[in-house]
């Protein structure tokens, strides 16, 4: 069993800084999810851990070993790729047996272990088939089995579920999570899907332009983003941002924006241009209290909830996520307010978080 430590890890491709000196410690047995926009360096980081790319700077430790220079095969890790990377010219059995054969395990032992792991992930009946004839979920399971069979201490997964349809994705993510529960190996998991990140991660690592933006538990990252980038990246639909000014007030601060102004008692935030962020589910339609009037400009029913676009007089409309049962019509005039405790403020220039 082994934790992972990345020390000032960097990778430069020509002129591109794909990974720009990241430090990260993943304790043994943790399930870490890497997220970030396309091209932010997730795959590159994973490949460096696997040994498939040679870092241009920094070091990688797995367990107590500095593995930076090791061959991928020596690192005792398992990797699942987005494309699954099943060998199309081998049967399922041979696919699962491949890593054992590479390690020159005795044939009888191979037979035993392949069958055992095949049963664990429910592909025992598919062993004679070829990958091309498998369904998406089956192929996914075979890829897992192939990784599991050598019992690696670290699992690396690069968007393993992204080629599955929505339904299967939900199913498989539960299964992987269950696996993690059983094995208690270290998992590093890359995904684009927020639901996956939120539900699977012990900790989420948000990356942007080769740097780590925030590391934290899922709800921490969601509810307490470290900067405007993280705040905007997480959540569908995205967090509403309102640009305005902060003024120091006695006993707190006041945020003023076009057609909007609210007091933030008890907070010391200084003065200057700032951005207020509030998630759609924290915009409430109310009839009383400190609130602002708005017109409903668009309604998007999602079934389980409804998105309401509110024109309140600011430069763009605010999106509120309200209960599906709410009776609304385009053109309605409603008042709205924010859940004060969920508001976040950012420095307009740096995007850094202001409220503490």
């Amino acid at each position, binding site marked *: 069993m082994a934790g992972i430590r990345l020390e000032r890890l960097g990778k430069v491709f020509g002129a591109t800084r794909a990974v720009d000196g990241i430090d990260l410690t993943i304790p043994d047995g943790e399930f870490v999810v890497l997220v970030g926009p396309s091209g932010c360096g997730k795959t590159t980081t994973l490949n460096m851990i696997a040994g498939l790319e040679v870092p241009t700077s920094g070091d990688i430790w797995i367990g107590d070993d500095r593995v930076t220079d090791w*061959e*991928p*095969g020596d690192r005792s890790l398992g990797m699942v790729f987005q494309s699954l*990377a099943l*060998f199309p010219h081998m049967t399922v059995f041979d696919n699962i047996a*491949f890593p054992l054969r590479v390690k020159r395990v005795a044939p009888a032992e191979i037979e035993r272990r392949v069958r055992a792991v095949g049963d664990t992930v429910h592909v025992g009946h598919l062993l004679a088939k070829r990958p091309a004839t498998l369904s998406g979920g089956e192929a996914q399971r075979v890829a897992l089995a*192939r990784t599991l069979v050598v019992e690696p201490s670290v699992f690396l997964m690069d968007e393993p579920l992204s080629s599955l349809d929505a339904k299967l994705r939900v199913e498989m993510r539960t299964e992987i999570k269950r696996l993690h529960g059983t094995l208690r190996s270290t998992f590093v998991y890359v995904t684009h899907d927020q639901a996956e990140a939120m539900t699977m991660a012990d900790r989420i690592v948000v990356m942007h332009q080769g740097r780590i933006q925030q590391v934290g538990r899922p709800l921490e990252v969601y509810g307490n983003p470290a900067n405007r980038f993280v705040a905007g990246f997480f959540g569908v639909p995205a967090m509403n941002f309102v640009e305005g000014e902060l003024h120091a007030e006695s006993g707190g601060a006041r945020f003023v924006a076009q057609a909007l102004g609210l007091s933030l008692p008890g907070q010391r935030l200084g003065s200057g241009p700032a951005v207020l962020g509030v998630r759609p589910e924290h915009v409430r339609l109310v009839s009383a209290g400190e609130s602002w009037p708005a017109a409903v400009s668009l309604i998007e029913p999602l079934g389980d909830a409804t998105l309401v676009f509110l024109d309140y007089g600011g430069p763009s409309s605010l999106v509120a996520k309200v209960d599906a049962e709410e009776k609304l019509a385009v053109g309605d005039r409603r008042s709205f307010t924010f859940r004060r405790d969920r508001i976040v403020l950012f420095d307009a220039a740096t995007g850094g978080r202001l409220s503490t």
Partner: protein
Amino acid sequence: MRQRGFPLFPLVRHTLLLAWAAVTLFPIYWMVMTSFKQAAEWVTWPPRWFPHEPTLVNYVKVLTPGTSTFELGRQTLKILKPIGDSLIVSGIGSLIAVLLGSALAYSWARFGTGGRSYPYNILSIRMVPPIVIAVPFVVYFVTLRLLDTYTGLILVYLATSLPYVIWMMLAFVEEVPVELERAARVMGASRWKVLRSVVLPLTASGLVVTFLFVFILNWSELLLAMTLTNTEVSTIPIQLNKFQSANEGRDYGPQAAIGTIATLPVVVLGFLIQKHLLRGFSFGLLRK
């Protein structure tokens, strides 16, 4: 997809295709027929479209080893040694070319070794007309003691067929997903193991097609073979040329037999790999 209009299109298409098929088959047909004709039927007016008295004598003649009776102006060709030599030279030359060339294509496709222009530079080697290098080659090969040796001709064919190998194999290598190799690497396979167990099986059809194509090229090559060999080595085209050049010939039957023999194996191979041929000749230019 459907096309409206022109109801006669299939008819027109078949007419045109049949016409070209006839053009294609006519010389081949004639050669095969002549190879079964006796001397009296080789040239007649009107020409005979099939042998009235079919015979295998032409094949017997060219395949029987040893000297036979010679006739004035009707030398009898021997084909066994040239076939053997051609097999050795084109076979080994093409094989090494395919191995090296596909390794090179792999290295270029995966690591960009040699720079972006490398395949184009290689292609321009093929542009050099063989006659240009023929004269200095003799001078050079003499010093290397490679003249009139299998090794010499194999090296030359290796060099001249590499450009084709690289271009054809690029298409196939690029089709192998990198992730497959990475997966194998992570499982502890060495690079050799990856090549052997993953890349090789997945590009096998490409290797076969490429081999066949350069084999045809080398099997057919005349000028360099003629220049660089004397007594020891004699490929089929040389042998054919010795006896068929415009002022000789007229030994139609045995020559047709040799032509048929020299053509048959390649044609059979070609049929077998026909569907891969198409992939081999996309040169990686178009992908779905």
